[in-house]
């Protein structure tokens, strides 16, 4: 895989070159009174630089100089126009948003085992060293990732990865129309003038947390999984018994999770919990500690099926 340090250095040099081009564009056609027009011009210039160099050279000039190139997944040769354009647009959008955008690019690239940051994930591409001669297939990504970052194992099986669990959480209510209607009702009630107050929004949020905790407790205790976990081939089990946790522990887990996810004041603690899930040996966040649980690969599935399910979830293809 491409060295992440080299990629950061290449990006810094490319960003400097792009900054010069953007200043020239502003000087030529910019308007000091139109902030968003100037931002758009900057994004257009960066997109053109990234997309055209990807199309003609296979990567930006600096990346080529440092021995890196962009490959399109499931294809050979240089990336095609649509892939280069999508990648260029994402790089441009993240570049024109100071601090937050740069942070998102850096964090997404550094935390991914294969260094596939947001631009590569959106475009369906990957950055590899020149020496890497073969093409990259989507179905092989899971194997490559395991090669770079060995999977974490427990007595009950392989630990679920953070990004897969995050996406599984998003899919959680996919098939629960009753829950969707409940939150829709909560959203509606605070738009009716007599109820459109800050207090009502707080109350509706509190009601939502109660509904969430009850539903999550029921699902985890009864089945040891949410619909999203099933799609990702994951199960939630008691660390001691390997079976779905009891009602009390499921409730404790759901309560901690509900509060961390839906009370913005607690989001710094959520960040700590996510770091624990990402970096400790068992992948347990604070809610897992409260529930005495582990989230692991479903032992009823064969390992390759589970790995492919997790990869489909990671790529947003589950469903």
């Amino acid at each position: 895989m491409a060295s992440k340090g080299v990629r950061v250095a290449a990006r810094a040099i490319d960003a400097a070159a792009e900054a010069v081009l953007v200043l020239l564009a502003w000087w030529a056609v910019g308007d000091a009174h139109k902030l968003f027009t100037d931002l758009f011009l900057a994004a257009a210039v960066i997109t053109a630089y990234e997309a055209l160099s990807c199309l003609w050279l296979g990567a930006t000039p600096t990346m080529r100089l440092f021995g890196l190139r962009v490959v399109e997944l499931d294809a050979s040769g240089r990336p095609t126009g649509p892939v280069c354009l999508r990648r260029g647009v994402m790089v441009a959008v993240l570049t024109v948003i100071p601090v937050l955008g740069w942070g998102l690019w850096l964090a997404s690239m550094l935390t991914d085992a294969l260094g596939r940051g947001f631009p590569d994930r959106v475009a369906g591409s990957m950055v590899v060293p020149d020496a890497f001669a073969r093409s990259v297939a989507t179905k092989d990504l899971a194997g490559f990732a395991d090669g770079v970052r060995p999977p974490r194992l427990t007595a009950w099986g392989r630990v679920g990865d953070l990004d897969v669990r995050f996406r599984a959480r998003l899919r959680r209510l996919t098939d629960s129309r009753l829950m969707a209607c409940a939150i829709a009702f909560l959203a509606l009630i605070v738009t009716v003038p007599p109820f459109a107050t800050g207090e009502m929004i707080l109350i509706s949020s509190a009601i939502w947390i109660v509904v969430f905790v009850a539903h999550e407790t029921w699902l985890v205790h009864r089945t040891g999984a949410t619909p999203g976990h099933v799609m990702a081939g994951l199960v939630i089990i008691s660390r001691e018994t390997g079976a779905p946790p009891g009602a009390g522990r499921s409730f404790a887990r759901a309560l901690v999770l509900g509060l961390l996810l839906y009370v913005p004041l607690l989001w710094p603690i959520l960040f700590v919990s996510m770091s624990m899930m990402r970096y400790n040996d068992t992948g347990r966040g604070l809610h897992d500690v409260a529930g005495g649980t582990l989230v692991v690969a479903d032992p009823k599935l064969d390992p390759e099926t589970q790995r492919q399910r997790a990869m489909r979830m990671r790529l947003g293809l589950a469903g």
Partner: protein
Amino acid sequence: MALPLRDDERTRRVPWITIALIAINVLVFLFVQPAGFQGGGISNRQDQYWQAQEQEEFAYRWGAVSCEITTGKTLAQHPSGCRGERPDSPPAGKSISLALLTAMFLHGSIAHLAGNMLYLWVFGSAVEDRLGRLNYLGLYLLGGMVATLGYVAFNARSPVPLIGASGAIAVAMGAYLVLLPRGRILTVISTAAFQVVYVPAIVVLLLFFVTQLFTDPLDQVATEAHAAGMIAGFIAALVFRQIPAVRRRAKTDAADAELRAGTAF
């Protein structure tokens, strides 16, 4: 408040018309509309005054003004049917019928533009895929005008200019309800602790429709245009659904969905 992010319906073709409509709206806002619509970036009070004048003149020239449409006369011709505050110097030589079209491509602020384009992308691309490009373009443009006329029907004497693509986008939303009733929308619900969930499209769209009935009139939102647009889109899609090509596409999509559901992965 519910903010859609994307739907989970698979599309078969690149939604070029939707992309083109978004590009036109964005380019018009950035390069054609005066700087005042972007907040200006001016501290000098006199310059701010001139910028506001320029902004007002632009909105009256290219926006749809209800009482101009109902009387057939521009504000510069001093129609008798207008009630409310009018501009000091309304633009002369304005085309009222052209303004019905141009108003659909103008926006009052970057937030207005961003919200509308997000809705257009989520719902428009799916409807374009199901209807076909030309049908969709016709639905968008004609439906947008019908939505504006719906607003005019409830505000016949208003001299306030109406701008924004939301009426036309509401048409696409109404059509989505008929064409893809089982679609699911990834939605952020800010009033339910920022929950991000896949909500059935029917819930999101009915929620949007109902909230139009409760919006505060002081919010300066053309709720009548949204409601009229959704109804127009709903009815038009019932008609479009009878076209053989559209029926074939619906059948193929249903077969695809069944195939995917049966895929053991």
